[in-house]
């Protein structure tokens, strides 16, 4: 590369360098001022799949946050006046033709049709189901990440007996799968609270607790490994020599360096929790008292409904698939962007 082709502003800074610069090192100079996070974001923005997935995820977040206004805008609500006004009891409880599919044409009144037998509006249930799904997954991810990060930090940094004990608990919790825990706790929650007025809220809280209790170990392991490597680095040793208290070292020195593994573990947890929430509701052991995509799927797998009205099944099903798929692919792209060495 000759001096004429390089711009005047680079000339000054490069004047001490040899004339024949290879393009790579020049590029490295230009991005030298960026933080690792900005570099990762730049990589992510160039990844077409990641951008598409981010848009899809954003769409679901908007649906979840504005479930109320959106359903109001379409003039639908969770409340059903009278089931017999909307469904035809003589025709296996399928919706009446004027309510839209499967027997009638599309109507603006119920853009996604109504549910068989109960006559509930599908669009409203879909929107609120999206809210429940994301709310439970996000809250559980938050709790599980906090617990995982704290346990991982302590186990990795303190070492010794603390590490042994915490690692034992990590291994112990890893042997018990989510599904089993949820299955065990469901009848207990049912037995204790089924007469309570806010049974639905209690169920959701219990679900979040179960997901958090059995979801933190992956993060803890990941963080522990990173901390083990980081604690021998010079800046941590310097902080120690200066007499910085352990808590400050953990949260001021180590934590900012753990942003990448934390983001990675969140990206793994979110889609898992969304899928699990719906899966448990489908089994009848998650949210059974309230709105959930999984519950709608369970109702829609009734064989008469499925034969006559497959759209009823496909609406929540596509919701879950699209959300989980885009969260997974986005997470994959984020992991690539944060650590480009792993894949190529």
């Amino acid at each position, binding site marked *: 590369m000759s001096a004429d082709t390089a711009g005047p502003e680079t000339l000054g800074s490069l004047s001490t360098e040899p004339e024949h610069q290879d393009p790579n090192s020049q590029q490295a100079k230009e991005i030298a001022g960026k933080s690792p996070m900005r570099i990762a974001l730049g990589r992510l923005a160039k990844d077409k799949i990641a951008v598409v997935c981010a848009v899809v995820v954003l769409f679901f977040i908007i649906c979840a946050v504005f479930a109320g206004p959106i359903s109001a805008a379409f003039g639908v609500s969770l409340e059903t006046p009278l089931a017999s006004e909307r469904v035809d009891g003589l025709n296996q409880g399928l919706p009446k033709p004027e309510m839209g599919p499967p027997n009638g044409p599309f109507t603006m009144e119920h853009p996604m049709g109504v549910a068989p037998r109960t006559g509930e509006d599908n669009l409203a249930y879909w929107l609120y189901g999206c809210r429940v799904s994301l709310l439970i997954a996000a809250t559980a991810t938050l709790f599980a990440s906090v617990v995982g990060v704290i346990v991982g930090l302590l186990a990795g940094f303190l070492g010794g007996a603390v590490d042994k004990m915490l690692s*034992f608990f990590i*291994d*112990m919790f890893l*042997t*018990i*799968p989510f*599904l*089993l825990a949820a*299955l*065990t*706790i*469901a*009848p*207990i929650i*049912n*037995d*204790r609270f089924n007469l309570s007025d806010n049974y639905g809220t209690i169920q959701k809280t219990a679900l979040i607790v179960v997901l958090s209790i059995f979801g933190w170990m992956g993060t803890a392991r990941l963080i522990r490994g990173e901390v083990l490597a980081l604690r021998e680095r010079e800046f941590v040793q310097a902080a120690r020599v200066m007499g910085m208290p352990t808590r400050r070292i953990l949260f001021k020195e180590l934590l900012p360096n753990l942003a990448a593994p934390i983001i990675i573990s969140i990206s793994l947890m979110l*889609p898992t929790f969304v*899928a699990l929430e*719906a*899966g448990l509701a*489908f*089994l*009848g*052991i998650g949210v059974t008292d309230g709105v959930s995509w999984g519950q709608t*799927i369970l109702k829609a*797998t009734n*064989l008469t409904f*499925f*034969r006559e009205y497959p759209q009823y*099944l496909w609406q929540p*099903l596509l919701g*879950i*698939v699209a959300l*989980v*798929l885009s969260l*997974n*692919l986005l997470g*994959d792209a984020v992991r690539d962007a944060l650590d480009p060495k792993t894949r190529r």
Partner: protein
Amino acid sequence: MFAYVVKRLISGVLVVTLVSMAIFLLFWYGPSSPAQPICDRETSNRCTPARLDTYERTLGYDNPVYVEYGKFVEGIFVGRTITIASSEYECGAPCLGVSFRTKQPVKEELVSRIPATFSIAIGGAFLYLLFGVPIGVAAAKRRGSVADKALVSSFLFISSIPYYLFALLTWLYLTITFEVPLFSDTGYFPITQDGPFKWFSGMFLAWVALGIFGCTQYTRFTRGAMVEALSEDYIRTAKAKGLPTRTIVYKHGLRAALVPVVTIFGIDFGTLLAGTIFTERIFEIQGIGWWALEAVQGRDLPVVQATALFSAVILICSNLLVDVVYSVLDPRVRLS
């Protein structure tokens, strides 16, 4: 080696004890009264406080929790007699309690459910390896080609869909809508009663669904391990010697690459055994998972407790086994 196995065994026993305590405590303190479900059932929902008290007393819920846990453990090793109200039920050696619904010892029904769950797990796991390993090897051999990239991204796509939705759609469309002959009647049919063909055709769709879904993960593992193994120096040496590609890939490469795959397989098999709930629920196979779900719906607490304990023990044992096998396969593990 021996010391390592003993160490792992001790920690395994410790975990089993802790988990059994946790489960016992959960079922003791969790429900408003552990005897409420049976009282409701026996009195057809007219459970008065006096009657509830009788059930609680005969089931031992007025004793301190550690005494009852002791009895529970004793029951597992030597058996015990369980009293519910005025009737007594004999519960033989590994006593896990008496079902609230059928009044039969839980163990007997658990044993009768095991073949169905085992059939799913064995068939599914077999297909994991049958599809996963060869596809992974083939992809690693053609690393970087269009076919490899297409395979990797399409498998990433499949494995990003929740398993139960995949299984549900396979069942709904293949069995219900299109009535594909081989898949038309899913469920568990004991070999001894209905013959091997019926057993096979009942299970086949569940296996295929599990196999297709699970093999994506194995393809990824095998591909990764193979790519790594094929870049080792001894492979270059083998190539330089002029060995045929087949020998290099299968004898030298695959052998090294299979070690991590075997480990993951062991863990997965345990998980499969303990957690075929979705598969059983969707394909109507009446194994342990199906039974546990029924018990949850029927508020049959002893059955739920027993299935939870059984699955946890299976998982712990399979993890233990994997660790030991791994230490045999790879001596570096037990030295660290």
